[in-house]
């Protein structure tokens, strides 16, 4: 269960960004998680809720955008369904992963005092 260490990395980044802007609170986080990333959103959310207590993220909402897996032939662009042989039946070249392995922090919404 590596979701806890993913959250640890996430929190380190968010805290650094918040400190840089002298933010007083983090209200929302948006992540983009691919279905072939090896990260399970439900477990990630549980880990997040456990971690955020007494941090600048306490009470923040976590939104996770799931990115579906997309394989395609790099030559003819034909898409290849997951579960099929990952080779283009027409061009006989290995498929490439177009999306689905993302573990991305998209956006942080934070309260920044007016200066």
């Amino acid at each position, binding site marked *: *269960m590596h979701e806890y*260490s993913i959250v640890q990395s996430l929190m380190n980044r968010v805290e650094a960004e918040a400190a840089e802007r002298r933010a007083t609170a983090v209200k929302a986080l948006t992540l983009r998680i691919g279905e072939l990333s090896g990260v399970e959103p439900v477990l990630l959310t549980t880990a997040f809720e456990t971690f955020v207590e007494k941090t600048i993220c306490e009470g923040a909402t976590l939104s996770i955008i799931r990115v579906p897996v997309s394989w395609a032939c790099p030559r003819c662009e034909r898409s290849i369904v997951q*579960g099929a042989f*990952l080779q283009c039946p027409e061009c006989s070249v290995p498929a490439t*992963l177009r999306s689905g392995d993302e573990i991305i922090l998209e956006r942080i919404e934070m309260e920044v005092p007016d200066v």
Partner: protein
Amino acid sequence: MCDTCGCGDPDVVPIEIQDKILAGNDRQAAHNREHFTAHGVLAVNLMGSPGAGKTAILEATARADRSLRLGALAGDLETDHDAQRLEAAGIRSVTINTISACHLDARLVHDALHGSSMNAHDILFIENVGNLVCPAVYDLGQQFNVVALSVTEGEDKPVKYPVMFRKADLVLITKVDLLPHLPGMSIEKIADSLARVMPTPRFIAVSALSGQGVADWLAWLAERRRPAHAEADHSHGHGRHHAHS
């Protein structure tokens, strides 16, 4: 401050980040990779289930070519059993006990390397924590990922754990000496599974017990070492080019 009424509430500001959550690990991994390349070391991240035969394959590798200077980092939650086995086989080994963590990350590898002399190795095997899920998520700075899959685990493991197998540069199908005892299991069935999760499925059927496939595995390693060590060869001298009878 709230612009309309001056109530003193702070503004909520959206900050676009668009960066990998594991960017810190990736930076550390890139540093490790530079280190390996600079020293002419081929670093292989060896992953697989607990009991897939990772340690046994490394022992067989050392037995099969005594001229290779092999090093290993052995990741396990507890004990230094694997490092002891590897040392006994002639592989200089360092244990990384993760206690509760289910995978190695680039920092653990970096810290373990600090205590050892990497210059002395042709190949460094990073024997990851036995696990088909978490280790695949973390770049360690290796040049290649190798996954050990034993024939007793079932031919559908690749399609059940696609994240791990997609990232494999090579799959070692281990314990193939047991195939006669496993009705219904075949290399062809495993190959079919692999082709559904690896765009370029490469595998070698090996047995640490009988030695089957070990020569092919050594050839694969030699092929991967070539770019890294073509340059380093001059400075290393020729001590390791022993004749084999």
